[in-house]
C-alpha cells in the first residue's frame, strides 16, 4: 500500500519540482497586503503590468521616438512591472507591519539589498536586486516616509543606469513625489 501511495507522490513531485524552483526564484513581490491603505491614502498610484501586457505594450513603443526607444530598450526582457504608491494627509497612516510584509519578501533567497538610505527629509529609501548569478533578475525599490509608502517592483532583467537616466523624460509631468530640483543646480550639472 505504501508503494501504491508513494508512486503518485513521486510522480507529482517530479512534475511540480521545476515549477516550485522557478517560483522560488520569481522576483515578483506580492503587494496585495497593502491594498487596504488605498482607502486611507490621499493619492494612490497603482500599476500592474504583467508579462502579457508587457509584450503587447512594447509593440506600441515607437522606435522613431527617442524616449520611447529608450524605454523599449530598457524593458526588453522585463516580465512585469508592479507599483503601489500611497500618499497620506497625515503622519503614521500606515504601520511598520505593512512595510514588514514587503521587507520580509525581500529577505527571501536571491534578493540582495543594494543600498539603503535613511534621511529625516526623505525617509527611508531602499533598493533591492534579485541576482541570478551575476545577472539581475529583478528590482525592488521601497520608499517609506511619514506620509508616503511606495513600492516599485520590476520583474526581469533591468539596467539601473538606464532606468535612472529616464528621470525627467518620457513626456510625463513630474509626479510631485519628490521636491523640485533647483534649476540653477541642475544647469550646473
Amino acid at each position, binding site marked *: 500500500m505504501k508503494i501504491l501511495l508513494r508512486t503518485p507522490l513521486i510522480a507529482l513531485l517530479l512534475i511540480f519540482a521545476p515549477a516550485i524552483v522557478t517560483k522560488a526564484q520569481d522576483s515578483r513581490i506580492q503587494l496585495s497586503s497593502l491594498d487596504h491603505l488605498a482607502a486611507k491614502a490621499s493619492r494612490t498610484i497603482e500599476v500592474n503590468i504583467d508579462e502579457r501586457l508587457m509584450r503587447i505594450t512594447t509593440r506600441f513603443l515607437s522606435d522613431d521616438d527617442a524616449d520611447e526607444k529608450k524605454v523599449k530598450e530598457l524593458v526588453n526582457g522585463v516580465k512585469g512591472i508592479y507599483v503601489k504608491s500611497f500618499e497620506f494627509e497625515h503622519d503614521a497612516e500606515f504601520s511598520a507591519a505593512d512595510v514588514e510584509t514587503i521587507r520580509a519578501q525581500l529577505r527571501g533567497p536571491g534578493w540582495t539589498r543594494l543600498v539603503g538610505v535613511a534621511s529625516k527629509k526623505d525617509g527611508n529609501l531602499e533598493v533591492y536586486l534579485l541576482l541570478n548569478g551575476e545577472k539581475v533578475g529583478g528590482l525592488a525599490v521601497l520608499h517609506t516616509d511619514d506620509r508616503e509608502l511606495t513600492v516599485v517592483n520590476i520583474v526581469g532583467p533591468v539596467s539601473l543606469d538606464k532606468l535612472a537616466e529616464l*528621470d525627467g523624460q518620457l513626456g*510625463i509631468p513630474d509626479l510631485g513625489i519628490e521636491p523640485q530640483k533647483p534649476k540653477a543646480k541642475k544647469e550646473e550639472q
Partner: protein
Amino acid sequence: MNEDYLWDKSGEPDPEIQQLEEILGTLRYQPKPFEVPGNVPAPRRRSYFPLVAIAATLLVALLAGGIWLRVRTRHEPRPQYVQVPTPPVEGKPITSEPEKMPAPPKEHVAVNRVPRKRSSLPALSKREREEALAAKQQLMIALRLASEKLNLIHRRTQSTPANQIKNQHRVG
C-alpha cells in the same frame, strides 16, 4: 512355462516372473485423490496499479495546468488607470493600422518581388489595443517613479556621509 501368463496372466506363472512381480508390485499405480501441497506459492498476477496511478496523476496534472492557464488568461488583471495629466505627445501619432500597400493592377504581368514591409504591430483587437495604450501610460508612470526614486537615492548617497549609508554592496 506358459507364455500366456505374460499376456493375460492365464496358465502357470514362472517363479522368476512371480518374483519380479512381487518386487515391482510395490511401485504399482495406486489411485488416490489429487492434493495441492500447501507450501507451493500461488503465481502473482502482475499489478498495473502503479502504472495506472502515474498515468492518472499525469492526466490530473495536465488537466489542472490547462484549467489554471485558462483561468489565468480569462482573469488577467485589468490595468488600473492613474489620473495623471499628460501633455500631448509630439510627433507622429502611433497607429496600429497596418500599412496599406497599393495593389498592382490585375492586367500587369510583371510582379514586384520586393517583400512587403510588414507592420511592426500585428493585428490586435480593439480591446487589446486599448489595454496596451493604457498599459503604456502605466509603464511610463512606473518607470518615471522608479527613476525618480533611484535618482533620489543617488543624490542622497552623494550628499550623505558614508556611515549613514546602510548595507551597500557592490554588484557586478
